């Protein structure tokens, strides 16, 4: 499957990855609308951590043995056996946050803007390349087949 590789050496903490992720998962998919008009707004599913000059962006690692899928009480969180992508079926999700409780990367967010759902990286499965990777100006994120 494909995996996003993170090179913290070259992450410059600009957070463009977060911005484009938010746009990608917005209703309009247009940056100005996504930030100014779209209701309900969206959350970025990639998260930049930063201390001083050290920073990196992290998003769901789509683990081989994903703890979130085992903790999910509704069956919403599941790994697609073919693509390897762990996806939260937002229709099914009840917002119990069991997945958040066990994600060792802490990359699942509570989206309480409309229905309460667990919001996480879907690897932009409908794009050629995840938007965070595509828009990172410093190649700190790369997608590789493993």
């Amino acid at each position, binding site marked *: 499957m494909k*995996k*996003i*590789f*993170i*090179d*913290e*050496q070259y992450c410059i903490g600009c957070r463009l990855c977060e911005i484009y992720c938010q746009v990608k998962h917005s209703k309009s998919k247009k940056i100005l609308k996504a930030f100014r008009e779209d209701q309900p707004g969206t959350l970025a599913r990639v998260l930049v*951590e*930063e*201390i001083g000059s*050290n*920073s*990196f962006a*992290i998003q769901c*690692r789509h*683990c081989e043995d994903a*703890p*979130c899928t*085992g*903790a*999910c*009480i*509704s*069956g919403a969180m599941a790994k697609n056996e073919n693509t390897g992508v762990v996806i939260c079926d937002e229709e*099914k999700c*009840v*917002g*119990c*946050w*069991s*997945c*958040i*409780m*066990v*994600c*060792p*990367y*802490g990359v*699942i*967010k*509570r989206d309480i803007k409309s229905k*309460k759902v667990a919001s996480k990286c879907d690897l932009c499965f409908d794009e050629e390349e995840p938007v965070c990777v595509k828009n990172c100006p410093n190649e700190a994120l790369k997608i*590789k087949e*493993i």
Partner: protein
Amino acid sequence: MKAFSASGSAKGMNIKMVKNKNILNTDYLIIGNSAAGLSAAENIRKNDKNSPITVLTKEKYSNYSKPLTTYYLAGRLEPGNLYFKKSNFYEENNIDLKTNQNVVSIKSSDNLAITEQGNQYLYNKLLIASGGRPIIPEIRVIDKTGKTLSLDEAMSSVKGIFTLTTLDDAIMIRKYINEYSIKTASILGGGLIGLKAAEALLGLHLNINIVELSDKLLSASFDETASGILIEAIKKSGSSIYCGQTIEEIYTENNSINSFKLSNGRKIPSDLLILAVGVLPDTGYLKNSGIKTDAGIITDSRMKTSIDNIYAAGDIVKSHDVLSGSDKNMAIWPIAVKQGEVAGSNMSGIDTAYPGGFLMNSVEILGMPMISLGQSSIEYDDKNKDLKVYKSHDTDRKIYRKIVVRQNRAVGAILIGAIERAGIYWGLINNNVDVSEIGENIVKEDFGLIQLPADYRKHLVVGEGIEV
């Protein structure tokens, strides 16, 4: 909810009906159609594409998630949406589900499971994943005439007293609330199920009384502060909480509950009582099976019982607690799933060890998300001199964080309000990471992977893609 009938076996199964004797022959027999049972079945199918798998449940439903039953109770989900495996799961995995099959005994010498409905299942390998049963406390139930029953006896005859561990329970409670226009409901037990029930009933705008024996809510995992935050919020919603109390007597009228008396003598009117004082492994039917039990089935690290071709997983098991090192009953969903997985692998020939687990909970009450992990309720005291306990409490924003560190390893956490990165602590506990370098940053709201020791960060993601 679409009920699967017993004859609705998936196509292509080669289960033979031995004439007149009602003996069904299968390779893998799984008792329990829930978290543990189905994750085992799925895993068996991964490794063994052809052998017949049969799943038995005493209930009339196809799968549903027990934790979701309170969402049904709250009116947030319809019964048809309580499944956690899609209806085509059985067909896709070629699993034969038999509903309404209540196993009453196991003859391990003959490899037979016998059901109340008169069927016998002949297996090669058996998994017992039949979960727990609710504890019925000893309370006198007294009617107007002074006639006294034990609560156990009263459960079937007196109206308005329920347990809440199955979908049927939830359906009955909801029906009762509607039918009798219930305004006030009481819950005995301030543990996980009690609170989830409370959350549901609050959503239905009922007045709630919670009676809890300990002086805290969620006493197994919450400390005083966390419990205090919770109590304050619930009280604000107009409900009452009676901590340090239990119910001594229940009073009925017209064969329905109408009030009860607390241990402090106070009498509280109530039209509905939900008993939520815990569940116990339901091992009664295994008495003569030869399977070793001791408050739960005893298994080895492969989830194998004392009998070679019988495995067990989920709430019915006495599980290994990695934090205390001892075995105890830990009735939570993720543990049931994990154990099912391990059992399934071993049953289908892939040797896998269950690493053990620890207790954890995630509940959201009145819009306050709360997560607790591991040994979260303990404090530094004379008995626990090797602890470092980090706390931060922002009363305005209702954010409470507590991390318990023992000998440089995180062993417990409570997060209220800001829970987003709770899983990082789960990882630290699970992987036994030395957190001494992190110091008190570990409790900060912006605590993240970036503060973790670089080699752990790397270890976390070996092959997963962080270049440190």
